[in-house]
């Protein structure tokens, strides 16, 4: 327990080798993945969902608050970026920023309503509010495309001063664009977790009552953590819309929230990088299993059951525990 409850950000800092390895694997992904039967878009998807799961884990694993409606903010980022590209701007970064803002603002407003709830009750309220956005995306067909999803936009080339990068036609270039966004977001989250603010979140997770008695404004911290988490997951959602040149209403559905939570838990929600590992496993398994059988839903369901009963600490938690003995 003592090892597991250490701030993960510090543990990572103490292992520069492991950290270098993670980035090396990510940087070289387009080159080694084809040998294992992968393709670049699959790697991009892992990065996008990994960022989403890590953003959710900022709340789930490091603040100890159970949000089960995060798909909504992922979807808001996707629709925000998609609509911005379709109607407002031809700039990919601007569309991403707009998508992130939309999700962040929605998270800030709803977060204020729900920060006083705890435990299962918090989960229930977050799911229910998440569904609001699902229904909006599903019903407001004239704007969102309804059940067919939002189409008619595509990511635009990047203009970096004198250089223009074609991220639409070149899958590798887009992968590296996503990797840059991922790196910025992840670095910010790691920085926040190592700051006094991040330590306060851990204190709230470990013992909320004690934190309150120490004079920490608990609700304010949980609200901030919720908003930060929503901002980063909206960025992931925006990147997802760019990846597919498409936004799908089912990405806002609560079952997608469940997928994100299982990614975080499966990888290890007490570790910083765990959710990325979980997302990689989930994406690869889903890709593989759905090509084998039509009963992939049962498979995913069984995966949930197995993770909960046998690996509640996730893969990284399981490995770390093993190496401590």
């Amino acid at each position, binding site marked *: 327990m003592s090892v597991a409850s250490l701030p993960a950000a510090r543990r990572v800092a103490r292992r520069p080798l492991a950290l270098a390895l993670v980035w090396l694997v990510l940087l070289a992904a387009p080159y080694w993945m084809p040998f294992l039967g992968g393709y670049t878009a699959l790697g991009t998807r892992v990065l996008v969902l990994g960022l989403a799961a890590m953003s959710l884990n900022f709340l*789930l694993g490091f603040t100890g608050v*159970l949000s*089960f409606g995060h798909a909504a903010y992922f979807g808001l980022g996707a629709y925000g970026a998609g609509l911005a590209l379709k109607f407002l701007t031809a700039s990919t970064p601007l569309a991403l920023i707009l998508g992130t803002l939309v999700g962040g603002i929605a998270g800030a407003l709803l977060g204020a*309503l*729900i920060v*006083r*709830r*705890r*435990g*299962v*009750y918090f*989960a*229930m*309220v977050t*799911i*229910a*509010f998440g*569904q*609001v956005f699902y*229904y*909006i995306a599903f*019903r*407001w067909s004239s704007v969102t495309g309804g059940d067919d999803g939002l189409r008619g936009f595509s990511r635009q080339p990047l203009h970096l001063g004198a250089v223009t990068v074609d991220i639409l036609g070149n899958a590798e270039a887009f992968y590296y664009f996503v990797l840059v966004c991922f790196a910025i977001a992840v670095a910010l989250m790691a920085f926040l977790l190592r700051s006094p603010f991040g330590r306060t979140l851990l204190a709230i997770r470990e013992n909320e009552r004690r934190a309150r008695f120490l004079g920490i404004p608990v609700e304010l911290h949980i609200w901030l953590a919720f908003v930060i988490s929503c901002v980063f997951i909206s960025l992931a959602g925006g990147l997802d819309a760019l990846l597919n040149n498409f936004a799908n209403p089912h990405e806002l559905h*609560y*079952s997608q929230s*469940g997928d994100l*939570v*299982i990614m975080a*838990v499966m990888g290890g929600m007490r570790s910083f990088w765990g959710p990325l590992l979980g997302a990689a496993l989930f994406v690869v398994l889903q890709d593989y299993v759905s090509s084998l059988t039509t*009963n992939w*839903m*049962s498979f*995913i*369901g*069984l*995966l*949930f*059951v197995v*993770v*909960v*009963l046998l690996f*509640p600490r996730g893969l990284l938690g399981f490995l770390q525990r093993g190496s401590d003995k």
Partner: protein
Amino acid sequence: MTQLLLFNITNGLIIGAFYVLMALGLSLILNLSGIINFAHGGFLAIGGYFAFTLTPYIGFWGALLVAPLLTAVLGLAIERVLIRRLYGRDPLYSLLLTFGLAFIFQDVTRFIWGAQGLPVSVPAFMGQPLSLDFFFITGYRLFMVSVVAVAVTLLFVLLRYTRVGIRIRAGTLDLDTVAALGINVRALRTLNFAVGIFLAGLSGVLAGGQLGLEPTMGDGLLMPSFIAIIVGGVGSLTGTLLGGLLIGVASGVTSVFFPSASEAVMYVMMAAVLLVRPRGLFGEEGMMT
């Protein structure tokens, strides 16, 4: 206009009755065991399909009773094998487990009975409208509402006056003390879970007669049931009952004036309740918050 309004209020009451049945089961399980049963909609669908398979052998009336019982037995088995392991652990795990179960149920139902919707026949005399002016009040709709009313009354009587019911209510307030008094809390929770699932199975049978059967038929009822619990107040079954009827009627009435907002209105109500009275209309302060 009056007739249209009346039609939608009736519709709202009927759909509200389903929310109530579903939400009461969820609420029972949540209150005593602290578990949100995501698979509740799956149990509902299975109840409906059990009735479909049984009707040719034991008729509509037999199926109405036996199918929910069978669903409850299935619930009992799942509680003993899986859910029981998660009591006292972080609620995250029970959420994920029942979430996975919901996926499995949906897939298995589809595998056994097919993805196509199946019609369910109800006794012919119930299909007729009771009066020409109020064409929308068919015998079956009246029958559904009465069954729900009887089931809800029975549940409240059971909880109020029987020894088991009193123990369940006491356990909701303070399970440790109940256990310290020598009551078998494990058995109590199992029984309570089975009662909740029985209600889901019953709503499945009734809903099948009205809307037909589909593997995903329970999903649409799950969110409104959550909202009914939140609006009514977590921890209060009376609150859940009134919350379910309230959001049913509210969404029925809204569909007259602004059809595309009939779902949104429930969420608006939930937001309003959380703003003004965060514990819910009938919730006790400090309960599960």
